[in-house]
């Protein structure tokens, strides 16, 4: 009964959304995190349209960064970190790719090595030993002091989201008051 099994592996480039993703088990139920770079027209409403896709179709957004990156061509780059099963991630990319104002969709997680960075500001209040300890740790993490009073510091730090998480954990007992994070910006490595 069962016909010859033609898997997605044999399908040539151009015939499908064809990413390295098709090499995986499409039925896997594992939840994965992917960083997508989406190049869009820098026009009002475009960000709302992209975000609306995620909320409307029940996809997750872990992190979102957007700014104009090409003034002459009027383009913005949206970096979005999302989670889902392999099939859901494929669907997210296809849904993004077919939107009229979307020019390119890149899955930085599968398209090769990439660098991911986030900027964060931490307000830490404290006196005495805690204050000194905070400063010392900041030095280890290469965080800069960008504001300082007698009772508080604001540290600025760039790094991977994990690095920012661990710095925040360390600062918590030392008087962490507030954190502001930009969300992830990412680029593929090499040319």
């Amino acid at each position, binding site marked *: *009964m*069962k*016909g*010859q*099994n*033609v*898997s*997605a592996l*044999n*399908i*040539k480039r*151009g*015939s*499908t*959304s064809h990413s390295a993703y098709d090499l995986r088990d*499409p*039925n896997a139920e594992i939840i994965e995190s992917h960083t997508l770079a989406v190049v869009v*027209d820098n026009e*009002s*409403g475009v960000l*709302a*349209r992209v975000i*609306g896709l995620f909320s*409307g179709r029940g996809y997750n957004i872990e992190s979102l960064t957007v700014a104009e990156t090409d003034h002459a061509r009027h383009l913005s780059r949206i970096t979005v970190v999302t989670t889902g099963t392999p*099939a859901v991630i*494929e*669907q997210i990319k*296809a*849904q993004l*790719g*077919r939107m*009229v*104002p979307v*020019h390119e969709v890149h899955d930085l997680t599968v398209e090769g090595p990439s660098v991911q960075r986030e900027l964060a500001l931490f307000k830490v209040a404290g006196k005495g030993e805690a204050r000194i300890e905070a400063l010392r740790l900041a030095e280890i993490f290469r965080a800069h002091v960008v504001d300082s009073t007698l009772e508080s510091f604001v540290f600025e730090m760039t790094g991977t989201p994990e690095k920012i998480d661990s710095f925040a954990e360390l600062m918590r007992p030392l008087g962490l008051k507030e954190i502001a994070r930009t969300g992830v910006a990412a680029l593929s490595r090499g040319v």
Partner: protein
Amino acid sequence: MTKAMTGARMVVQALKDQGVDVVFGYPGGAVLPIYDEIFQQNDIRHILVRHEQGAVHMAEGYARSTGKVGVALVTSGPGATNAVTGLTDALLDSIPIVVLSGQVPTFMIGTDGFQEADTVGITRPCTKMNWLVKDTAKLSGTIHEAFHVARSGRPGPVLVDIPKDVQFAQAEYTPMQRARTAHYQPRLKGDIEAITAMVEMLETAERPIFYTGGGVINSGVAASQLLREFVEATGFPITSTLMGLGAYPASGKSWLGMLGMHGLYEANLAMHGCDLMINVGARFDDRITGRLKDFSPNSRKVHIDIDPSSINKVIRVDVPIIGDVGHVLEDALRIWKARGRKVNKDGLAKWWKQIKEWQSVNCLDYKPSEKTIKPQYALQRLEALTKGMDRYVTTEVGQHQMWAAQFLGFEAPNRWMTSGGLGTMGYGLPASIGVQVAHPEALVINVAGEASWLMNMQEMGTAMQFRAPVKQFILNNERLGMVRQWQELLHGERYSHSWSESLPDFVKLAEAFGCKGLKVSDPRDLDDAIMEMIRYDGPVIFDCLVEKHENCFPMIPSGKPHNEMLLGEADTQGVIGAKGAVLV
């Protein structure tokens, strides 16, 4: 260098340049400048509707029956919000329409001005694309871009929101050729290697089937021609979704009828038992697949679709082909012929033998009655008496819609207009007017249920005013039939609010609108009444009193696979489990 003109004049000029001959609309404060321009010209006909939802459905009916882009014009605030259902309907069924909406002047946006609504915000999820134009210099270019987006790739609805001050201000007109279209050019040609892979598969398949959908219709008349040629040449059986009826003729020898929840037994069992499924412009909708886990378990699947997001969305396929149906079929036919027109003759002969057995079950059989009109009988008579006429059919949503799909035969594309994806009750009457406006000489019939029909019955006024002789063929069971059927099967026969009380007298209603009303309850009077309806030169409301408790079969209960169909009342006891009951 073209001369400067007002934004309002630009709108009319851009519509003319796009070849628009009719606009369905309703005026209001925020579109008065555009209406002033419409008043001063004769190239574009304006059809004044009674409610903006009607305008959008009319534009849809116009678009579905002509293959052109339909246009609706509405005012700000409530005008725009009333258009939302129609926009969503067009989005789900991939119908190209352009809705132009007025907006409060730019300097008032955000102040909660009179009749202000965040129209682009509200319509963003129900349009393929929308624009708020804040600068008159960009207005005509945006309208041209809107038409391009609506009709290109997978077609769909778009909306252009135009503040009133933008309509008054002057700027230079951007002609169609200079509008921005390069950024949106979906690929039409399919990948040749993938198409070749499909051809190889169909050469050896023992139990192949074509499963076609609205994408064939949207691709144009040539795509339907290619499909017919392909089906005839291979001798493969073909079934179609609700949206794709007419692409292959109902009288064709390979036709199995519609598939899906209320599709034909032979079509569904062939889908379940095939070893090669060729999906041409359909999208594995849940009305088609039933329980996903058991959907056509032993087949290899090919999926031709212009929208990459349709591929592997719900059903994983073996050969995806992204491209326009017409282009892909053309290449496939060429390659198949060049390779020697091979099919698996022995396998096919056995397959057809099996299919004939399924066909002999005669799944559309129903218990006839001499006393009451069975809805199926009414449609059989309608079919018999109108077949061969220049006929277009629209429907509302419910049992009557499914019976119409089962009992009416369509020989050509663009002849069947129904709300498939969204299931919009109230679609059929305005859609029939849109069709009639596009085809003034044709016989346009809206097959309706009384409950759906009431949802937009105000549009009879439009039909009268613009002399659109639409025939409203209402199968009146004084029930919300499909709701009632589900309550019978799923909710212990507790018929919660599924009857239509205080119905109007449809004949008097027709007289009140100034058109003709007919009422039939005896099967023996049916033929004469249908002929009277057809012959009457004007709109008709046909009140066909039918059996009140007839259920629509065959039926695949929700949560069940194709091979667990119900064929009639006897099959219905306790068939839907708790899991199925949560599905719609």
